């Protein structure tokens, strides 16, 4: 129900109730007063008749007495009247006599002798008539009062409606028109109210609240937009990062993974245990477990190899422990681990290639002298530890220089490559090291158990080297080889330089003897 209607209705009901109460009181008061008044009137009528009644009684004039009582009862106020003449025991009456408490009695005196009581005048008021009259007069008053109340209620209601509820309604309408979804469009309300009172104060206060709210709305939105922008950038950073970024929960499960991370480990890794992605989960778990608050270690890193099908990926993983600051209480705070993964496969490959190039002869693909010496030392150490025989062979090509001079370096290079491949194919089957020691000098280190094996191997080696090489369809060339072999037994020890030197000497001696192609000597 609308406020104005309610106020009007309440005022009306209140005034109706009040006027009803007052009208009731008034009614009874008026009724009493009117009754009293009518009774006084009756008494006055009786009093005015008592003199004539006295004369009638004095003269025992029944006609006059009858006239008097008839005259009294002719009045509406009087129901019945009677005159009793004492001396004659005679009563003259008129009207309907009824027993009533309100009987009015007046003694009839001798008109000429004051002390002489000669009769009695009895008058019975017409109670019903009096009450009816009094009641109708009182009711009229009551209705008048209620009618007046109604008019006042309507007038007050209209005034309140005009002066209070209309301005309030206008204010409420203006406030309800405010669209909080568009704070920038909010303007101060203006209902056109001009009186300087509470409604004006309310209107002004509402305006100041509105403007305060507007400022807050706008600043909050600005903040929100800034936060969203920042969030967008963070998201971009996270999603566009080349490094894989993931977040592991306290159980080591992946809870968040960026696209780079997913491209490394698969798109559905979220929820999987990070360590189980690798071949040795225990190692990874051990590294992660180092990251505990008590140990004080906040970062660990590890290089891991991921077998993605047949392809090997080298990954550099950086683990950092972080606290979830969104959770307030210490009990709730979870130990989280951030893992940043760099794919270092390409770098590893480049490194390997560089190392290979540094270690190998670019022409033949064999170990060069420096790395060859290193590998030979390693093999020598191994032979000593495993109690095996060790043979160091110095191979020098025969008739190579004429080929180089006659057919050019390209042909020479081709010959060297071919021979290198042949030697590698042969020694590959055994525990061996082959290096290109000089221009047409090769060194082979060989670890073996059976002493009888060595001459067979050496002869096969020379056979392979001496195989005719087809340079092209018109040219085939053939070289030979002189080989010096020094054999070191298991219990013996010697430096590589010494062995090389001995083998070199043996090779030169062999070269001098045209018929012999190799010499094997025990150290």
């Amino acid at each position: 129900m609308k406020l104005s209607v309610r106020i009007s209705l309440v005022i009306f009901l209140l005034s109706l109730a009040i006027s009803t109460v007052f009208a009731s009181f008034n009614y009874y008061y008026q009724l009493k007063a009117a009754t009293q008044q009518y009774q006084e009137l009756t008494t006055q009528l009786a009093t005015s008749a008592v003199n004539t009644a006295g004369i009638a009684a004095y003269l025992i004039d029944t006609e006059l007495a009858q006239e008097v009582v008839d005259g009294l009862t002719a009045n509406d106020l009087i129901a019945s009247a009677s005159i009793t003449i004492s001396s004659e025991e005679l009563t003259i009456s008129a009207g309907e006599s009824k027993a009533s408490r309100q009987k009015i009695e007046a003694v009839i005196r001798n008109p000429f002798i004051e002390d002489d009581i000669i009769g009695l005048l009895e008058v019975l008021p017409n109670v019903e008539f009096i009450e009816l009259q009094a009641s109708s007069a009182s009711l009229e008053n009551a209705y008048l009062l209620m009618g007046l109340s109604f008019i006042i209620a309507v007038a007050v209601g209209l005034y309140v409606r005009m002066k209070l509820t209309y301005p309030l309604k206008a204010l409420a309408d203006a406030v309800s028109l405010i669209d909080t979804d568009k704070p920038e469009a909010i303007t101060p309300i203006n209902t056109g109210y001009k009186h300087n009172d509470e409604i004006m104060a309310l209107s002004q206060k509402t305006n100041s609240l509105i403007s305060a709210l507007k400022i807050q709305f706008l600043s909050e939105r600005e903040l929100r937009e800034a936060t969203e922008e920042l969030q967008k950038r963070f998201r971009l950073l996270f999603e566009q990062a080349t490094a894989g970024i993931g977040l592991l929960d306290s159980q080591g499960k992946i809870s968040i993974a960026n696209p780079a991370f997913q491209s490394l480990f698969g798109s559905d890794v979220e929820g999987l245990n990070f360590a189980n992605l690798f071949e040795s989960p225990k190692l990874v778990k051990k590294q992660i477990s180092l990251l505990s608050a008590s140990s004080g270690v906040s970062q660990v890193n590890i290089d891991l190899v991921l077998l993605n099908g047949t392809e090997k990926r080298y990954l550099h993983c950086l683990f950092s422990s972080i606290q979830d600051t969104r959770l307030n209480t210490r009990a709730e705070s979870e130990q989280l681990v951030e893992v940043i993964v760099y794919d270092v496969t390409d770098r590893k490959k480049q490194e390997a290639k560089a190392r290979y190039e540094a270690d190998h002869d670019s022409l033949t693909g064999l170990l060069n002298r420096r790395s060859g010496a290193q590998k030979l030392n390693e093999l020598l150490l191994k032979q000593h530890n495993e109690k095996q025989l060790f043979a160091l062979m110095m191979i020098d090509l025969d008739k190579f220089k004429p080929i180089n001079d006659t057919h050019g370096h390209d042909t020479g290079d081709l010959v060297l490559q071919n021979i290198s491949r042949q030697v590698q194919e042969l020694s590959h089957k055994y525990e061996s090291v082959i290096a290109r020691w000089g221009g047409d000098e090769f060194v082979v280190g060989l670890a073996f158990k059976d002493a009888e094996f060595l001459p067979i191997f050496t002869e096969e080696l020379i056979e392979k080297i001496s195989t005719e090489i087809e340079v092209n369809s018109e040219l085939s060339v053939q070289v030979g080889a002189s080989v010096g072999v020094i054999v070191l037994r298991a219990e013996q020890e010697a430096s590589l330089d010494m062995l090389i030197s001995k083998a070199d000497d043996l090779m030169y001696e062999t070269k001098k003897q045209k018929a012999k192609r190799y010499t094997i000597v025990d150290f």
Partner: protein
Amino acid sequence: MAAKAYMTDKSDQLVVVVHGTSSTEALSKKELIDIYMGRFKNFPNGSTATPIDYFKGSNQRKAFYQLLVGKSERKIDAYWSRLLFSGRATRPNKATSVAEIQQELQQNPSAIAYINAANVTEEMKIVYQFD
């Protein structure tokens, strides 16, 4: 005061007289009022009474009613006017002079009248004196 004045001068005092032959010897004031105000038409002993009044405006009349019922002449006239249509009571006959009263008193044995004490003759009998 007025009564006192009459007492000093007996000749001016009003007395009520009847015919000398009347059986009535004396009347009380109440009996006198009843006769003059029309209540009874007889003397207490039953013989007819014919009250005689003075003409309107005479001093004796004024004095008589003042002494008898303490009322003015006007009030007495009003009393009789009120009873004009009733007919139950009749007002006393009015005499125009003292001589007429004297004559009436001589002629009518039932007559009763009031006169100055000085005018009482031997044919009259005083039945009431105002004191």
